Structures are given as C-alpha cells and as structure tokens.
C-alpha cells in the first residue's frame, strides 16, 4: 500500500506533480546494496546526475536535512531533503527530485522522479532541460545499478 511501499508512493507523487521524469525498473541486485548507493547522496549523487558537481549534505542520520547542490556551471541551489529507508525526496525552489526502492522478487524495484516547480520555471533551465524525459530516467537507474554492482 502506498504508505508502506516507497515505490508506489513515488508513483503517486509523480502523477500529482505531472513529473517530466519518472522511471521505474526491477534491478537484479539486493535492496541493501541499491539503497546504499541512493542514500549516499553526497558521494553518489554527483556521479548519478551528470551536470552536478557537488551535493553538500550536513552529516548525521536525521530524516530532514538541508543540502546544497553545486552545478558544473557553478550555480548553487539549496534543497530540502527527506531521507529514510527506501525513500528520498529533495526539493529546491525550482525542482523536485525523488528516489524510492523496495525489495522485489530477489532483487529491487527502483524508481526515480524529476519535476520542475511550476511557479518558478525560468531560471531552472540548467537542470530542467537535462532532467527531462524517460531516457534520462532510465539512464539514471542504469547508473544506480552500475554503482550498486561495484559495492
């Protein structure tokens, strides 16, 4: 059910946000390894999102955090982050990003979401243009799988 399955929950948010990017796939890798990659935002997110140079996250295990994204162009963007097992939702003034994972048939169902915030579209082009589309979503999931396989 939506409250307990993070992937179903992210699917509902993707519908609600009319997200430009949403992809969901079964990965033949253990959930723990997949989520270890996704949850390691500071180390992994810049490897997963090509135009991101840094993602600075304050240390600690709290579910609510503020992070700072630094783009390859040097532009910075502050993000509110919600992180818990199988669930990550990140939001800036301009864009929303999300990841979800749940164990499924010996592997993992993994989902990624990217959306722009409608009231503040224009300055978001540096992220928006690149984030859009299903192909981008698939590529993201593939990179998560590659990184998880290395762990």
């Amino acid at each position: 059910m939506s409250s307990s399955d993070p992937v179903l929950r992210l699917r509902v948010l993707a519908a609600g946000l009319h997200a430009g990017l949403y992809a969901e796939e079964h990965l033949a890798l253990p959930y723990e390894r997949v989520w270890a990659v996704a949850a390691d935002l500071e180390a992994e997110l810049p490897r997963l999102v090509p135009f991101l140079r840094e993602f600075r996250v304050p240390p600690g295990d709290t579910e609510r955090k503020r992070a700072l994204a630094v783009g390859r162009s040097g532009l910075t963007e502050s993000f509110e982050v919600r992180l818990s097992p199988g669930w990550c939702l990140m939001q800036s003034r301009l864009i929303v990003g999300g990841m979800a994972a749940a164990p499924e048939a010996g592997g993992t169902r993994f989902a990624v979401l990217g959306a722009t915030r409608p009231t503040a579209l224009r300055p978001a082009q540096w992220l928006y243009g690149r984030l859009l589309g299903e192909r981008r979503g698939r590529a993201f999931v593939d990179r998560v799988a590659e990184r998880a396989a290395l762990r």
Partner: protein
Amino acid sequence: MGIRSPQGVQGEGDGRAAPWDTAAALVRAAQNGDALAMDELLTLVTPYVTRLCRPIAPNDTADAVQESLLAVFKGLRTLRDPQAFYGWVRTATVREAVRVARRTSAEEPADPADLARLGGLRTDADGELSADVRDALARLPVRHRAVLVLRELEGLDEATVAALLGVPQGTVKSRLSRARSSFRKAWSR
C-alpha cells in the same frame, strides 16, 4: 455532502487544527508544486482512502488504494476549493474502488447464510470494521457494498450517495433495502 466527519481522520477534538484545515493548507501548497506538502498530504489521506477501499474492494484493497490515490493526486490541480478535499477524495475513491472490485468480483448475489454474524457496520475506535463484518461485506455484490459503506459508514444521505455513485436516488433506496434485508435475514437465523 454529509455532515459527519471522515472517520479515522486525525486532528479532531484534540486541540489541533480540524483535519480539513490541515488538508486545505497542504492542498494549496501541493497545487503550487510543493512536493513535500504533497507527500504530507499523501500520508494524511492514505488511511482514510484505505478505510473506504477495504469494505468495497476487500480482495483488492491494495490495488484500489493505489488507483484511488493516483486519481486523487493526478486531479489535485483541478480541485477549486481545498476545504472540500475530503469529500472530493471520497468521490474519487469510491469510484475507483468500485471499478477495481468489479474487475475481479463475480458479482454473485449475497448468500444470507454467509452473513450469519453480521450485526451492522459498526466500527471500533479506529474506524475499522471488524474482520467478520468485512468477511460478510465481501460476499455482497459490489454495488451493494458501495451503497452500504457510504450510507452506514460515512453517514451520507441517500441523495448524496446517489450523486456520488451516479445512479438515481430510487436505485440507492432499493439497493440499500435489499442489502439490509440480507443482513436481517442472516441475523435472525
């Protein structure tokens, strides 16, 4: 719309904001693309949607809940009055739950013998139906279940139930009377 508050919705009578006020603020933010508010709204409304779906689609509750939530959030931008959120959720949920239940239900008439322990749609403190009541409900045709849930559990009047289900008021009346008489017969055995 009915005057009874949605069962199992938190925030009532404990000094906090009324559930529809809490929801309305989140609806407004979510309509403006605030994903964190939308996620909170999803957490807030999921138990209510689940309670509505369980008796209507007892064999496919998880599917009914997911389909209902998808419909609700997909259409959220079209909701003009955030204060009317719960009534709006109820409409979408009942429609989706009936649709999902019909997909798999054989739609066979209720067997009174199956309803032997049914004494009405009473709920416990959490607004949940007891397991034997749910079992008995599961054996009713989907259209009877929907009418009973809206009338008895949600406390809506017949006109509102008719509008929600898109059927004439007379149909609601006759379905209700048939469903209730099934209960009574079962109870008197």
